[in-house]
């Protein structure tokens, strides 16, 4: 017998998607496998690594710890949604390139989502606040220092451009 399907209507990066999903389809699998938005990475799949972080109604959450059916009617932003309208990298993404904050790149989308959420609520964070904000995101390459530098750089650039 095939699994029961549930209709969902979910806004992702400003675009509404109607789909039929099984109850056990995680949000990260929905984004990657059904919408082909593969920027969001599936890492540990049990809520430890943070690679799958997305914004749910503007707040960072782990998309492996939600079922897609739970987000029916809600609004998501993935790493793809943080690019500029013409598809070129956004300010945070640029800052990550500039400070060499990526190595293997696996954690990067989750890091940028976490950093974006931080800067939206706290445009001028201190180092401790930055480290707390990315505390739920594991990086096994960089040692974190360049990531912290990238977020500082993005914050400074955002402050500069708004003056």
């Amino acid at each position, binding site marked *: 017998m095939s*699994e*029961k399907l*549930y209709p969902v209507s979910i806004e992702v990066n400003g675009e509404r998607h109607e789909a039929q999903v*099984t*109850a*056990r389809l*995680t949000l990260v699998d929905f984004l990657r496998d059904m919408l082909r938005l593969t920027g969001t990475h599936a890492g*540990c*799949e*049990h*809520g430890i690594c*943070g690679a799958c*972080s997305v914004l*749910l109604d503007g*707040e*960072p*959450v*782990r998309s*492996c*710890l*939600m*079922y897609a*059916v*739970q987000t*029916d009617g809600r609004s998501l932003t993935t790493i793809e949604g943080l690019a500029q309208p013409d598809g070129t990298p956004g300010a945070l993404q640029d800052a990550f390139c500039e400070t060499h904050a990526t190595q293997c790149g696996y954690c990067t989308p989750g890091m940028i989502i*976490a950093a974006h*959420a931080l800067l939206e609520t706290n445009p001028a964070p201190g180092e401790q606040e930055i480290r*707390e*904000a990315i*505390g*739920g995101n594991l990086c096994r390459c960089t040692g974190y220092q360049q990531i912290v530098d990238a977020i500082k750089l993005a914050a400074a650039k955002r402050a500069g451009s708004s003056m």
Partner: protein
Amino acid sequence: MKAVPFEYARPATLAEACELLAAHGPEAKLIAGGQSLVPMMAMRLARPAWLIDISRLAELQCIAAPAGAPADQDGQFAVGAGVRQCVMERDPLARASLPLMARALRWVGQVQTRNRGTIGGSIVHGDVSAEIALVACVLDAMLELRDSLGVSEIPAREFFLAPMITSIAPEQCLTEIRFPVWRNLGGNALRGCAFDEVSVRHGDFALVSACAQVMLDADGRCLRAEIGIGGAAPVPLALPELGAQLVGARLDAQAISAAADAAVDLIDPEGDLHASADYRRQLARVLVGRVLRAAKEDAMSKAGVAAA
């Protein structure tokens, strides 16, 4: 890391959720934030046939102190079981009424998990090192449970039975947690509190945690104290007898050191691959000392503010 197939329901009311629980019994699990349940389902340690989503129930979202407690009784701060941890963390009224919870929440998981995880969800999960459960026990909170037949209450101190095992029945839903808000014991009495823990990494499960809330008179003498230890017993442990022993004492180095020693005699931690039983005892001793010192300093710092 994929859950077994299950069916999903999102009832519109609490009554409807309770009806579904009554119909499906142990086959069903409630899901609110899912930050503990979803990993367990991913690892197939939990295999519910039905998932009943209560995360959008407005009835579980209250966060407020009812007005008008008599001066000689503790006040009360009621928190709906479905209130997200991040909401309580930021709520100005909750921070003022329950500063110990505000301090504890900083240790709970990470930003991303606190954005989904709920106060009630952490309690019913029953992890022995859970910060929210420990605060509920230390403050002697009352838990309200509901099923399709009615409402019942149980003190948090009696709710936890063993690691991951609580006294909640499969057809019950935790609906509200009522935290006592200490009454003022005299004009110049000062309340202070502290929470501390040691874990492998911030946000991981605590190896051992401890917290304390004290009320001191203007001379620094203890009028009331509650102390608790997490991760060092089969349940989050409040130590009311230890708090009672501190009443009348000045919280000087000697009294704090004696209390920390006494606390170790009241716990019986188990060793596992993360920490031996002896190490947990040592952590408990150190952490109880730290939180008592910090709670005292927190209280005394308010005297400075009042004087200035």
